[in-house]
């Protein structure tokens, strides 16, 4: 059994420095790895990334992250990635990582992902160049996620994104903004590779549990959804989630 802890949307900044780390004591007793589902910073600055590194750089298990839209706000995403990597956090974008853990090998493929919506009410690559650009960005990131997932040879494989692959976990958000919260392209990527779990954030008012059309369990781990510092999922039995609540 591989136990994966996950949280997203911690939105760290100087004003809330130190608000998460006290809750991470003993994380290693409950989980074999920690996934961070984007929006690690509030304003997307390297100064905030330093705080993320302080908060998550020394939790006793491997930490794997994707960035979120907030982390792009100040055009410092490359520097944020560098700061996080220097502290030992693995940052994924269209890439994957495989870890040899006591319970088996864990593969995580990650991408920020993007919006566009879900079947029946989604954006298409049609019309104005801005519209095409929006959808192409989403498709390109999902394709990167799919390729990275496909390349994993681990016992269990997890898709880590910031944006949601399914509408299920958005329930609670205004339906009008679903196209800005996720894209079915991400579900296609997870389903295409038959991932064992898809973890995302971004939808603060959504709910934790969902499932892709292909049957991949989806978890929205945005901090305001979890109301706890992280959730733990045991990956050979995702349906009957174990570990501390």
């Amino acid at each position: 059994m591989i136990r994966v802890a996950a949280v997203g949307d911690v939105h760290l900044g100087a004003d809330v420095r130190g608000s998460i780390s006290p809750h991470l004591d003993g994380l290693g007793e409950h989980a074999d790895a920690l996934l961070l589902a984007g929006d690690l910073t509030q304003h997307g600055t390297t100064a905030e990334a330093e705080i993320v590194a302080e908060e998550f750089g020394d939790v006793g298990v491997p930490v794997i992250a994707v960035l979120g839209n907030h982390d792009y706000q100040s055009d410092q995403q490359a520097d944020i990635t560098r700061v996080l990597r220097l502290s030992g956090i693995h940052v994924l974008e269209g890439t994957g990582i495989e870890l040899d853990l006591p319970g088996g090998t864990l593969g995580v493929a990650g991408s920020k992902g993007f919006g566009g919506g879900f079947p029946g009410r989604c954006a298409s690559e049609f019309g104005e160049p801005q519209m095409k650009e929006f959808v192409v960005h989403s498709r390109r990131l999902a394709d990167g996620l799919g390729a990275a997932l496909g390349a994993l040879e681990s016992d269990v494989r997890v898709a880590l994104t910031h944006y949601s692959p399914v509408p299920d976990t958005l329930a609670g958000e205004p339906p009008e903004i679903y196209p800005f919260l996720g894209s079915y392209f991400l579900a296609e990527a997870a389903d295409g590779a038959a991932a064992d779990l898809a973890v995302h954030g971004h939808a603060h008012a959504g709910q934790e549990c969902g499932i892709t059309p292909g049957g991949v369990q989806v978890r929205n781990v945005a901090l305001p959804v979890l109301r706890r510092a992280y959730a733990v999922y045991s990956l050979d039995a995702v349906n009957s989630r174990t570990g501390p609540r």
Partner: protein
Amino acid sequence: MSHPQVLLLETMKKAAAILQQAGIPFALAGGAAAYARGGAPPVHDVDFVVLAEDSDAVAVVFADAGMTVERPPEGWLIKAFDEDRMIDLIYVLAGQPVNWQLLDRAERINVAAIEMPVLAATDLVLSMLRSMTEHHADFALTLTCVRPMREQVDWSEVRAAVNGSAFGRAFLVLLEELDVIPGSAGSAGSAGSAGSAGSGEPAELENLAGRLEHALTTDPRTHELGVRVEVAGGIASLHGEVAGEQRRALVAAVAAEVLSAEAPGIALRNEVTLTEVRTP
């Protein structure tokens, strides 16, 4: 109309005459006032409001008229009995002492062939919504009273006044869902509606909500995407969650700047809460 209802209306007229002859200012309230404004006749009792300073005098004149008078320990009304028919003489209405302003707003209406002051429709609805509690929240009865007089009520004033009451807000939602009143500007589902329940142009209020949300998203001090703004009844209320107290204060500061520049008449209500983090 059944016989007991006719007798209750006679009691109402008798009570109004007693107050009028004694020179005690009053207004018809409760279900009887709703009847005066087009609703169904009262069935349980008749309510009047009187000034708090007149409560002793009221007790005396009703006793002098041969009625049994009780002063219940709650301390906000006097009960008088015309045989078995009850008259409530209220001097603290839904928690607020009856004052001259309330009586001045009352309108003289001909009720069952006698003209008497009747609570203004807006005050009447407010008194009903404000008196709701967990143990007393009869939406059905209130709906019966409110529906016939909906055109007489200033709903934007009601909306602003009951904003702090869960029962009041819930009842307004019910009225909107039943199409008794138009939806509030800025609330989901009202986009494009021509009806106006708020002060000012509804489209303008919705656009103001949009501009506030845009400012909270793009202002470098906040960058908050999850804060929703509703503008109704002269109040812009902010809803959502942020990570810390300082961010909650900055959200209010940014919204206040937009309001002071664009809509100085709109008040700000910060209902943003803080994200709770527990140790798993």
